[in-house]
């Protein structure tokens, strides 16, 4: 027992003869100091400031009133719409993206389709905000190309109750950057499905359906859920697309925060901070789940 610490001591000495351990540890930390300083200034400080602000009234006194005020139906409604649109586009975009990624990985599509898909996904997942909104207005707006074409063959979308400037119109627009992101993140997971798993399942008597239900999908589940959470966050924080499309008409949390920054529309600064803080809480919960899911799938897929 006593020989062990001794041994370690000798080892440390041999590894770093030029500096005492304490000093070198201190110097090692210096290497990441600029990064940490930046993080404290531009990530931690703003977050803490919003956090602190949400516990203050307009005179700077401590209060929990702001969180009580969050229960206001219009604010809860905004949260609810934002969450719903994030869920819908994460599910819809996730499904379409998964099907496309499936096609190029295990679905038997030729290789060139795969490389074309990866390029286009890279572009489309980064194509968002103002120009995306314009593109959808010229396509599905009241006088958009598809709207007019469909009217020509006898289907009047807007008569049937569709509007681009509504919940579903915005969802359709968000999905433009959602499904390519799904393609990009789920393709590696599908690639991780090893041929031997399929063969082993078949060899043990499983049908293709049983293989998918009992082996492939369970293995993919953490990755699929994890990616959907990424998509959720992607839509949850979106502001530019929604603002350009609906001109602030739709009641999203991000739009509400935007108006609050411009001119205290809530007539309560603290409530604005609480609103923002609430968004961070929702996202933090989501990212925590994401973290655990990713850890699980990494553990399964390693080697």
């Amino acid at each position, binding site marked *: 027992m006593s020989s062990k610490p001794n041994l370690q001591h000798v080892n440390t000495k041999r590894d770093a003869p030029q500096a005492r351990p304490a000093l070198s540890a201190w110097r*090692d930390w210096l290497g990441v100091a600029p990064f940490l300083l930046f993080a404290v200034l*531009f990530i931690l400080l*703003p977050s803490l400031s919003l956090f602190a602000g949400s516990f203050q009234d307009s005179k700077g006194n401590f209060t929990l009133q702001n969180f009580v005020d969050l229960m206001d139906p219009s604010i809860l409604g905004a949260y609810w719409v934002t969450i719903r649109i994030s869920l819908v586009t994460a599910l819809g975009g996730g499904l379409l993206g998964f099907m496309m990624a499936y096609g190029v990985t295990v679905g038997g599509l030729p290789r060139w389709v795969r490389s074309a898909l990866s390029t286009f996904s890279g572009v489309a997942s980064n194509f968002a905000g*103002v120009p995306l909104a314009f593109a959808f207005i010229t396509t599905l707006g009241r006088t958009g190309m598809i709207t007019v074409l469909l009217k020509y063959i006898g289907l009047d979308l807007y008569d049937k109750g569709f509007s681009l400037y509504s919940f579903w119109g915005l969802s359709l627009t968000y999905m433009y950057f959602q499904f390519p992101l799904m393609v990009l993140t789920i393709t590696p997971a599908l690639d991780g499905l090893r041929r031997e798993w399929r063969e082993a399942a078949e060899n043990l008597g499983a049908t293709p359906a049983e293989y998918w239900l009992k082996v492939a999908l369970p293995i993919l589940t953490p990755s699929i859920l994890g990616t959907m959470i990424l998509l959720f966050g992607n839509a949850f924080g979106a502001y530019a697309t929604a603002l350009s499309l609906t001109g602030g008409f739709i009641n999203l949390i991000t739009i509400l925060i935007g108006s609050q920054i411009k001119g205290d529309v809530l007539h309560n600064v603290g409530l604005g901070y609480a609103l923002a803080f609430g968004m961070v809480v929702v996202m933090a919960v989501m990212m925590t789940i994401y973290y655990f899911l990713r850890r699980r799938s990494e553990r399964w897929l390693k080697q």
Partner: protein
Amino acid sequence: MVEAMRRNTFWSWFWMAVGVLYFILPLVATFIFSLRAKKGVLSFLAYERIFQDANFWETFTFSLTVGFVTILVSLVLVVPTAYWIRLRLPHLRGMIEFVTMMPFVIPAIVLVFGLIRVFSGAPFFLTNTFVGTNALLVAAYAVLALPYMFRSVDAGLGAIDVRSLTEAAQSLGAGWPTILFRVIFPNLRVAILSGAFLTLATVIGEFTIASFLVGIKAFGPYMSLIGQNKTYEASSLTIISFLLTWAFMGLIQLFNRGKSDGTLAGAH
């Protein structure tokens, strides 16, 4: 079995077609619309008007410059840090990675809200000056760029076994500048370029943060303004902006050729 295969491919093609239509229809519609600025004929008039607009060039140059400065700043922040934690502080990896993921937790609108609250007042007063405001903009963008910059650079470092390379260089008598500039950085070129172009693609058309900090000086807010007033010019801008994104992504793919698909992620 052969029949099952054929049916599988049918559905694969079907979903691929749905996705491709989804992707292409808005672009086609926008492009056709952008050609109709002149009544009765197709023309590039809308594009001409945009390219003759001094504000277009001003805002574009501004955002491009901000993009380049952001890349520089984030490289200076990320590369040495990623290198150092691989070499000396591997136990800090989790924490640093956590920090770089923060933009996924803090939406851009919340980030800019917090930044304004902290830095517009005492003791910083950054938003009162031209330099201060732009510095804040760059800082905000550097935060947004952290996830892809870090992931890209860290993956690049992971591919080259930094520790052995550094030790090999040291044993051959190299000093720190030689190690960094002649051994490590050249091996990171692809990773750095991918991260840089992804940053550029996000920053140039960025609207949320730019609109609150600098207003229509930046390209994103400029596009938004055009959209409210001039529909044909707006669609030509959409096409231009799309081509820009395509160009950046194409460049990334070009650098990454022979490697895996590259790690792309968006935050809107």
